[in-house]
């Protein structure tokens, strides 16, 4: 049997992290029929990731606060009547019609929704440096997933290199689980008194986040993990796997300072220079984007109700700019209220009233985020670590030298992809595009056009720059195409599609 199943739903929520779960629950409470899909086996997203299938929680005290927060969100959504569908990827989105595929199904499902909320979350910012492809070099998110879902430690001598308000959470968590963390590097400067004072003021109402950040720091220091500020990974060394990490002092732009290199033997290097929004689906849907490196790069434009420029398509959470779970959940409430109001399930006035405290909360978080920028603004040096021999596109094994050679012929991203094959592999450019975009931007001056793209220093008061089609292409990579996730020919095949039998050249 071939063909496809068709379903209709009021609100389709894509992504079962904090944003998706909260929006789904609230929309369902306002009377919408809600289907939430997530491609993973469990819900909760990255932060509230639940243990994988086959794991049973025997000692609730040991699994941590995030686990219970995730359980609560999932239960609340289910209790509100949300249909939760795991292992279900959205392959394509056009308007509010989505093509979904549930693992194990023999065919795709065509979902016609009245509204679609895309809450895809974020993934680790890919940072190519010499040795980044060695076994034993892992991303913080990847290692975290391993620990949370499978309860497996990534190594026995682990170094961490990264940056961000919650970057230290990861080595602290690892240490807490008994992993031997031998070094933690933060690219940003050590917090100084004036900055901390500013944070306390701006952080009014962000007590929990401040408390967490301080706890992580204290845990690391308490466990005697060397914690070094203003230092950045330069390369990973090793034959068949990582054997040592070389790091150096970084200037304000995160560029390595000469003669400051140090080397430390490790068997695992975790890299966590922040996150980048997952934009594939929103780009495929035709949404308008801006650019802000400190929010992860490409940032979808949304209005006060989280609506994108595409009719019926909304976005919330880290996928709209990485700001963390609390902001994600606040945005999700606005999206749910907005969708409910648009569909007549709640009056505009009531939606506006319910949104008021959420907006206040979001404003406070945004003040806090901006106050943190002097500490954690992403430096342009992050995309200058690769050397000519560094493989930038891992799937097609394309080095920086080859890319730069091809840039003598073209600076068009589609053409560059043609000439080098960079971005044509299994990951479809997810891990090479930020680096290629940065190199292209440096060459063409797109950086200055896009509003000092990689220059975070003066970002605080500037709105996210809106990109023209050409700039977007330069920074976002090539034309987005379905399927967003790989899917087998046998599953995609639909014998009921008429074939008029005309061959034309291909």
């Amino acid at each position, binding site marked *: 049997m071939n063909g496809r199943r068709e379903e209709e739903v009021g609100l389709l929520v894509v992504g079962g992290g904090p944003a998706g779960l909260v929006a789904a629950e609230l929309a369902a409470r306002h009377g919408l029929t809600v289907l939430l899909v997530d491609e993973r086996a469990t819900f909760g997203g990255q932060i509230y990731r639940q243990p994988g299938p086959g794991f049973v929680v025997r000692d609730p005290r040991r699994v941590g606060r995030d686990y219970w927060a995730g359980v609560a969100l999932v239960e609340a959504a289910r209790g509100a009547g949300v249909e939760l569908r795991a292992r279900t990827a959205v392959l394509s989105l056009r308007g509010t019609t989505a093509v979904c595929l549930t693992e194990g199904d023999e065919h795709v499902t065509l979902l016609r929704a009245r509204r679609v909320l895309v809450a895809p979350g974020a993934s680790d910012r890919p940072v190519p440096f010499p040795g980044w492809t060695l076994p034993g070099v892992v991303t913080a998110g990847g290692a975290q997933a391993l620990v949370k879902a499978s309860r497996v430690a990534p190594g026995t001598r682990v170094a961490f290199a990264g940056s961000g308000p919650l970057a230290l959470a990861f080595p602290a968590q690892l240490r807490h689980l008994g992993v031997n963390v031998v070094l933690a590097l933060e690219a940003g400067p050590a917090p100084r008194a004036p900055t901390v004072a500013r944070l306390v003021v701006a952080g009014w109402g962000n007590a929990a986040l401040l408390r967490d950040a301080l706890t992580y720091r204290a845990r690391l220091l308490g466990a005697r993990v060397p914690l070094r500020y203003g230092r950045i990974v330069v390369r990973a060394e090793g034959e068949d796997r990582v054997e040592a990490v070389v790091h150096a002092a970084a200037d304000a732009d995160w560029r390595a300072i000469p003669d400051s290199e140090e080397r430390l033997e490790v068997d695992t290097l975790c890299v966590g220079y922040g996150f980048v929004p997952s934009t594939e689906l929103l780009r495929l849907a035709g949404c308008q984007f801006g650019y802000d490196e400190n929010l992860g790069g490409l940032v979808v434009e949304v209005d006060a109700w989280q609506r994108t420029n595409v009719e019926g398509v909304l976005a919330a959470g880290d996928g709209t700019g990485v700001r963390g779970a609390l902001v994600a959940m606040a945005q999700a409430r606005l999206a749910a209220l907005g969708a409910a109001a648009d569909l007549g399930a709640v009056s505009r006035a009531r939606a506006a009233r319910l949104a008021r405290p959420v907006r206040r909360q979001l404003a406070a978080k945004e003040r806090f985020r901006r106050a943190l920028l002097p500490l954690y603004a992403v430096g342009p040096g992050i995309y200058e670590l690769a050397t000519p021999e560094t493989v930038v596109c891992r799937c097609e094994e394309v080095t920086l030298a080859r890319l730069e050679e091809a840039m003598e*012929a073209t600076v068009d991203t*589609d053409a560059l992809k043609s000439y080098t094959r960079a971005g*044509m592999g299994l990951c479809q450019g997810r891990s090479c595009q930020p680096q290629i975009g940065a190199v292209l931007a440096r060459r063409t001056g797109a950086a200055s056009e896009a509003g000092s793209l990689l220059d975070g220093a003066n970002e605080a008061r500037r709105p996210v720059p809106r990109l023209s089609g050409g700039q977007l292409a330069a920074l976002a990579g090539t034309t987005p195409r379905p399927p967003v996730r790989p899917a087998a020919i046998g599953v*995609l*095949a639909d014998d009921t599609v008429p074939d*008029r039998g*005309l*061959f034309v050249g291909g």
Partner: protein
Amino acid sequence: MDERASAESGTCVDAAREPGAGVLLPRRSDLSGEVPTDTDVVIVGGGLAGCALAYFLATQGVELAVLERAELNREASGTNAGSFHFQIAIHQLTGAGADADRDRLLADVRLLVRAAAMWRDLERELRADLGVHVTGGLMVAETPEQLQILVTKQRIERDGGLDTEVLTGAELRNFAPYLAEDLAGASYCATEGYANPLLAAPAFAARAFEAGAAVRTYAPVERIEQLEDAGAARFAVHHARGKVRAHRVVNAAGAWAHELARGNGFELPLRAEGLHMNVTEPRDRLLVPLIQHIGRRLTLKQSSNGTFIVGGGWPARAEPWPARPSVRWSSVAGNAAVARRVVPALADVRVIHTWAGVWAASKDLLPVVGESARVPGYFTCVVPTGFTLGPLMASLLAGQMTGTSATLPSEYSPDRAPTLARGGARQGGPS
């Protein structure tokens, strides 16, 4: 992976490399040079037709400029799958059956044999890696009626000088065990294969540049003015970076050629269509030859890096330039279905990407190549299904423009009626 496959993924812009040693790309600094203000020939469009024509003209000493509005090779020429289809395909047939069109088909076959020879020698001629692979090609038939068409067309191909054979039963199973067992048969042509469509036009452009052609990108042509009394110059080509006076112009604007022609008051028998393609994850070698279908929309091959490229003329949704056509999900689903029907082992191979390009469709699917009697000095060089035939057509037109070879057949005339249709099978075209 063979050595050619690894060379294919290499990139250099070093024109001084040894013949065939690497990929040959023109330099950006050259492409962005000044546009001349006076020349003999202006070619509008930097696709395969325009770049190849520039090469064939420039190497015969003709002074010329190529004006491309964006990047070279970025539309139909660089978004097709790069296959060489030499066998007579369904779009060449009419409802009357292959025998009824014997003379015309014989002429087509003879042309395709020449195209095959040209592709075989092209890497040597251009001293560049074009990713040419001669793999052979199968054309499958599902039904006895389709098999009969294969038998008929095979006789015409043989008479036209193209070696093909029809395989059925155990012979076919042994030769191509990956094909579905219940197919009625297949014809096989050993000279079919493919090249890398991303590399062919740039290589032509780089060699044309060496021979003195002014190949320029980001110089969109706004209009072609016909001059009344200006000596040798009959045209003033107005472009975004200025104006160039020319004795002759060539419209090689592909899927936009008819729009450009309208500016000079005539209709070309062309229109733009979207074309859908799929690419899968790489797998161990399953099959060597190209596979196409005599009765359904399928072209399929496993490329040198192990990925399967699946297409065959499924439509894509047109979008206003510079946006690419967008993918229709029905084309993903329909193309996957016919691929699995013909090669069942593909069922568990994952599609990682689709893409959609344009192609310049003529209703009769014949090239639109030659000089317009209505505007002397105004040539057109647009070739539907142009990857296989594009370089050959460009060389024939160059021969005509330099007076070194016979004129092109009137069948290809840009002045032919836009509604011309060659037969029932191709009424309508892909939508």
